[in-house]
Structures are given as structure tokens and as C-alpha cells.
């Protein structure tokens, strides 16, 4: 649709016309602000905890386990040097008493949602799948943070 609009504007004499072909889906999925009925405050990105434990795939599990425990979280995201999510250490992995590289203990390809995912849909998913948290990643795979079910429910009730 936007290419036709851009061409029409040119035919009307506008000389500097640009077409953002990826559109608002791309904009919102990257975690950028949006306005309207479903503004940014109604999306998970605005309610995600951004200071969550992280580690690299070659880190040692023992060191990571201690750091995660000290932080008060029970999960840790494994990312590459760009912050792209590679895996997740859940409760079971963090409960192991051996000291292997994180890559050997992590769960690969954890399910994530975009910052633009609607809060009401996130709550619905967490309830139906009995999830306490959902990881949030941008469209380029970079970790944004974690949305907690209790926080999402509270935020949804206040909208």
C-alpha cells in the first residue's frame, strides 16, 4: 500500500518522498514508541524488567549460578556479544551442581515475544500456558528483558 501512496504523492508534485516499506509492524517490534489506542504503555515492552541476569555461552555454570542466585532471579539468558538471545538457563539448569560451560546446560531457542506484543495477549498466554514470565526480544533478537505475569496482570488492571 505504501509504494502506491508514495507514487501518488510524487505524481502530485512532491519531490522528496520516502517509503518506509517495513512499516509500523517493524517499528513497534523493535521496541520504539507508538501512539494511539494501543500505545506503548499497552505493550509488554513498557513493563519488562530490563535488568535481568545474563551470561555468555562460554561462561562457567558455577559462577553464573552464584550470580543469578545473588540477583534474586531464577533464570538467566545466554546471549552473544551483540545481546542476541542464544538460550536460557532455567531452574533445572541452575540447580545442577556441576561446573560445565553454560552452552552445555542451556535450553536452546527459548520462546520470546516482541516489545510490541500486547499486554492483554501476554497475560492470556501466560495464564493458558501457566507461565510466570515471558522473555522479550526485539526484532533483531536482542534481549529487552522479562515480563513477569504478576506485573503484567497488575499493569493490565490499571489500564
Amino acid at each position, binding site marked *: *500500500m*505504501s*509504494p*502506491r*501512496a*508514495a*507514487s*501518488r*504523492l*510524487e505524481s*502530485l*508534485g*512532491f*519531490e*522528496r*518522498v*520516502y*517509503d*518506509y*516499506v*517495513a*512499516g*509500523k*509492524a*517493524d*517499528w*513497534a517490534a*523493535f521496541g*520504539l*514508541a*507508538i*501512539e*494511539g*489506542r*494501543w*500505545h506503548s504503555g499497552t505493550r509488554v515492552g513498557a513493563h519488562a524488567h530490563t535488568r535481568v541476569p545474563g551470561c555468555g555461552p562460554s561462561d562457567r555454570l558455577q559462577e553464573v549460578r552464584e550470580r543469578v542466585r545473588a540477583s534474586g532471579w531464577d533464570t538467566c539468558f545466554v546471549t552473544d556479544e551483540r545481546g542476541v538471545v542464544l538460550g536460557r538457563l532455567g531452574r533445572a539448569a541452575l540447580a545442577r551442581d556441576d561446573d560445565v560451560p553454560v552452552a552445555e546446560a542451556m535450553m536452546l531457542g527459548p520462546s520470546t515475544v516482541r516489545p510490541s506484543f500486547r499486554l492483554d495477549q501476554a497475560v492470556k498466554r501466560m495464564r493458558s500456558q501457566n507461565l510466570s514470565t515471558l522473555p522479550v526480544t526485539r526484532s533483531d533478537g536482542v534481549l529487552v528483558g522479562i515480563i513477569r505475569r504478576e506485573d503484567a496482570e497488575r499493569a493490565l488492571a490499571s489500564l
Partner: protein
Amino acid sequence: MPVPVDRNEVRTLLEQEGAQLVEVLPQAEYEDEHLPGAINIPLKTLDAESARRLERERPVIVYCHDYQ
């Protein structure tokens, strides 16, 4: 020819050149969500009259939902 731009180029055009953002989807979709500062001129109503809302001296960026 209209120039295709990506997200970063959109941000640069907005910040450095005062570009105007135009969502060309129907009004209901615009009211649901739109980029900050965007105005709505649905494609079906985009003609010389509605285009008067735009300043010709400034760049214009049009967008819809995605590649469709």
C-alpha cells in the same frame, strides 16, 4: 522514484530533516496504533486536496503496516 528507507533512515529523516510521517492505512487502523507524530491520510483519500496537509518543502515518509 520514491526512495525505500529502513527504520534507521526514518529516524534520521525525522531528527535531522524534519520529515513528515504519513500513515496511509484506514482511519481505524491509524487510531489503533501509529508512529509518533504521524498524520493519517488513507490511500483511498490521497489526492491533491488531502495532500494540502503536507508541506512540500519537507521530506514526506509514507508507511503502512508492513510489506503487504
